[in-house]
């Protein structure tokens, strides 16, 4: 696989870093578990973009395969995460991650 035409790798990385930072901030700042999960997905996608960008830059398909694996894991993680959110909602627990501090030492 040869390197394709398009923007430089640095652009991809910039977008990837932006996405990752957005996601990370979302995880850190937001308190609604749904949004936290969403932000997690954004972080993962940031990572994926970097993988694909490098793959394209280096002409190596490994990065793309890795990105596919990340997506599969992300999908299953979302299933579990959303399942937890639904279960919390059913128990009429306030959907606020700061209130879920039962594991405090």
């Amino acid at each position, binding site marked *: 696989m040869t390197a394709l035409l398009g923007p430089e790798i640095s652009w991809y990385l910039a977008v990837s870093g932006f996405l990752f930072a957005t996601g*990370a901030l979302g*995880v*850190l*700042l937001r*308190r609604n578990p749904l949004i*936290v999960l969403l932000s997690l997905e954004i972080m993962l996608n940031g990572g994926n973009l970097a993988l694909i960008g490098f793959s394209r830059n280096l002409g190596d398909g490994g990065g793309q395969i890795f990105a596919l694996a990340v997506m599969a894991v992300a999908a299953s993680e979302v299933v579990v995460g959303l399942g937890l959110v639904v279960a919390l909602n059913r128990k009429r627990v306030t959907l606020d*991650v*700061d209130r*879920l*501090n*039962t*594991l*405090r*030492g």
Partner: protein
Amino acid sequence: MVYGAWICLLSPLVAACAITLGGTRQSRRAAGYLATASCFVAFAGAVAAFIGLLGRQGGDRQIISTAWTWITGGSYQSGLQILIDPLSVFMMLVVSGVGALIVWYSIGYMDGDDEERRYFAYMALFVFSMLLLVQAGNLLLLLAGWGMVGLSSYLLIGYWHERPSAVAAAKKAFVMNAIGDATMALAFFLLIQKGNSLEFGILGGQFSSTVANLVALGLLGGAVAKSAQIPLHTWLPDAMEGPTPVSALIHAATMVTAGVYLIVRTHAIFEQAPKIADLAAGLGALTLLVAGLIALVQVDIKRVIAYSTMSQIGYMFVGAGVGSYPNAMFHLMTHAFFKALLFMAAGIVIHALVNEQDIRKMGGLRQLAPKTYWAFLIGSLALVGIFPFAGFFSKDSILAAAMAHGGWYGYLLWAAGLIGTLLTGLYTFRLFFIVWWGEPSAFVREHFHPLRRDVVGISLAIPVGVLAVLSVVGGWIQFSPWWHPVETWLQTVAEPLVSPESWQEWLSIALSLLLGLSGIAVAWSIYGAKRLAVPRIAWAQRTLEHKFWFDEAYDAVFYEPAVFFANLLRRGIEEPIISDSGRDLGDDTRDLGGLVARAQTGLVRTYVLAIASSVAVLAVVFVIVK
């Protein structure tokens, strides 16, 4: 002959094991008969060995039979072996013979006790231990028997384990004996180091005088502990907590005589250490006086006899110490007869009075138990050494030997022995007159019940009868001025060091007979005819009743400092350093855990922040380091 000796040794052990393993499948009385039978079999074995030895001459009268090599270490080895020689056969006959009678007597005395089977298993074990001690073919095996005698005496003294006093007495006996065991073991270590052997023959070897003295001292320590001589005598009167036949067994045929046997058996080393031999004689003389004095004020029938035992063993120590081994052994034998007789006659009295032992409550028993009265009278006369009873023949020759030892020391021992004779007459017949003469006391009239002619009565009466006969005729086998078969018999093993002149013999006989009789006369005038009042000297009486404050002194010297020191260690080291450090370690770990636990906020976002910042820091570090 060799088989006879092995049968003698092993049959009580077999009985002890059989009774133990048989458990409740055998009746209580069957256990008693089994133990008795095993002791009689042992006696038969001893007789076989005796007859076998009679058929030999001189040096052939020493056979070592080795079962197998027991311990090997480097160039040292010890066999599991027994020694058959005139001395061991002499002891085998006394131990198994008198032991068998006492075990037989126990069938009657212990009748109705809850744990008779255990009792008879212990008794058989005791006889076995003592036989092992006297038959041991080397010093190591002798020490094994020595220790086992201590163990079985512990078990028997504490037989009535629901009585705290009995348990305390058993522990006391064991601890006192353990001191002796330890000194003996030390002596043996020294022997192994110097001679690389524990055969009896090694004792005759050449040692430097320091080594000989130390070894002899160690052996003397063991002998003193086992034979209840000053300063390790305090366990013996307390040992009266055991059942009366146990007292008879410990005091007459076994255990306390072991010390005398040990000295005679190892006389070769004592002859190399004459100072220690003199010390043994001196301790014996001191003990016979002290015990005789204490016996004057005791009010427990068994304790009076117990102190008389101490006193008589004192005579044996004098005899063995001055080197008159045959006379010490002869007195050991006659003492076994009359002391067993006294204990067992006292046992009949105790039995008839429902376990009452206080002589102040007794009196006038002569009319109620005339046969026991005669038995007790024979035992008492033999103890005092009145012609023609057994003690007369054996005790006087010890006194003559002390005189023949010569020097001021010999005469001192001799004088002590003579004063002891006076005391013996006094305390023996004090007991005798108080218990048997006069009118029956109120207590006696109320509680006395005579022996019935059933198994109990018969097994109590016959051994006493046999011993009464032996106490009369047992001494006739040797009368030092004229004939001495015991001396001839033991000659190859223990040649006596002293041979008293004829005038010394006769002087000792006359004086001791005179003093014994005057002791009896004084006792009679005070307690029998009540013509004299009992002299009351407050401080003397208090001293005697406190047994010369030996127990108190040992408490003050050993027990109290030990407790004080232990408390000091507890307060100074144990509590602050050892036990507190454990607690502190736990506390600190918990505190540390609490500190770390604070990091666990339970807030997911802080975790995320921690992860993110850590990654950021790591990234920066990587970049910089690169």
